[in-house]
């Protein structure tokens, strides 16, 4: 983290013989629009004929060697800020099942299409100890990566974690992607919670995110000003969601 993107290559898989080509055109145009927003040049790309649509970008950028933000580097007492709400994976599962209404689809699409560049730019003027983005491993999986091998423990204030409200309903109905269950099985030994911890909330904390937010570590003193600046920059969902407690057990404690 901490770099500025400069060039990009498209990677696309598409059932070109079975599906309307116009849709492919729209996907690529959407990608270009986001690249413009990120002031990044599209150089070319690779395409594959495939039954399931896949689209992504391979991006190259620059970063000063002293300004690279790794996912490790947290210190005891640091606060953690999450900049986008969780629940994208669960809602996408409900969308696949045809259960999400148009308004929810619109909200989650806008959320996924929102770049992290505003959050990243605000973060530049603060002393950040560690940073990663929340994607396939879910919040708890990425928190686990941040402390893996360090001995540090994190306390998560579950009530403060931003969540897309509809995700709670769909998770309660069983629309939880396989990835969330897999994330939990892989990391549950590191995660501690009280016996009365809501299993639905727990699934949301493990929910794999598409284009999730940044997870930023900074000193407790900087946390409120950073959250405030993020809100001012339009990154409204940003919340302080927990802090590093000690360097003994290497656990994530859900409260």
């Amino acid at each position, binding site marked *: 983290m901490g770099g500025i993107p400069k060039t990009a290559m498209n990677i696309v898989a598409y059932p070109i013989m079975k599906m309307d080509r116009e849709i492919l055109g729209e996907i690529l145009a959407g990608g270009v629009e986001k690249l413009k927003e990120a002031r990044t040049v599209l150089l070319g790309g690779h395409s594959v004929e495939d039954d399931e649509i896949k689209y992504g970008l391979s991006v190259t950028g620059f970063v000063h060697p002293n300004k690279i933000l790794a996912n490790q580097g947290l210190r005891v007492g640091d606060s953690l800020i999450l900049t986008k709400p969780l629940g994208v994976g669960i809602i996408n599962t*409900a969308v696949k099942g*045809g259960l999400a209404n148009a308004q929810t689809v619109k909200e989650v699409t806008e959320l996924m299409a929102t770049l992290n560049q505003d959050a990243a730019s605000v973060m530049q003027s603060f002393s950040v100890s560690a940073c990663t983005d929340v994607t396939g491993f879910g919040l708890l999986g990425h928190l686990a990566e941040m402390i893996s091998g360090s001995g540090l423990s994190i306390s998560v204030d579950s009530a403060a974690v931003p969540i897309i409200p509809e995700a709670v309903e769909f998770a309660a109905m069983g629309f939880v992607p*396989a990835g969330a269950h897999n994330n939990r099985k892989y990391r549950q030994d590191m995660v501690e919670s009280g016996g009365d911890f809501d299993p639905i909330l727990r699934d949301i904390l493990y929910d794999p995110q598409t284009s999730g937010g940044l997870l930023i570590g900074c000193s407790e003193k900087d946390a409120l000003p950073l959250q405030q600046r993020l809100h001012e920059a339009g990154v409204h969902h940003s919340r302080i969601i927990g802090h590093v407690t000690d360097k003994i057990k290497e656990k994530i404690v859900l409260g």
Partner: protein
Amino acid sequence: MIKELDARGLTCPAPVLLVKDCIDKEDPEELSILVDNDSSNENVTRFLTNKNYAVKTTPRENGEFHLQGIRSGHIEQPDKATSPASSHTAESAQKILVLVTSDRMGRGDNELGEKLMISYLKTINEMGSELWQLIFLNSGVKLTTNASPVLKELQTYEKDGVIILSCGTCLEHFELTAAKEVGGTTNMLDIVTATQLADKIVQVG
């Protein structure tokens, strides 16, 4: 009649949709479902529980699971046609739905939070006839059980026509299903519907 479904070879959310479709169309008393992965097992179990089925899971060979769902005998849903609440709300200006999502009010001090919640629930009848439903979720369900400090008040409200409901999943989670002493049990779909129908929703917890 036992309805048999084979959800093997399907990935999320297809197994849940298969079961949902079956329940929506046929509303069977008992279901027998085969799934071939852990995620489907957990998701289908959650869906059936949500729909008031008691689920028994038996692991089979090759990572498959057999799920048996039997409709719980004691589904308690407010009968909207006959309940005194419907006439009660018909005359009211608006329907207020109160979601109690914890046994404490606010954050900070737990003891204080418990006192505040008790006080809130003892005072809530000041809303008068506009108070339509009280739905208890998460640790809030503790307030509808025999150990609740506001049990008497809630029972009085219920007699006066307020619909009182506890989330079934939550009661099961805290193993309090047998301890509930006031109101009915509800599920997420009914809660979603209730939140849609209410004129005003108040969340405390």
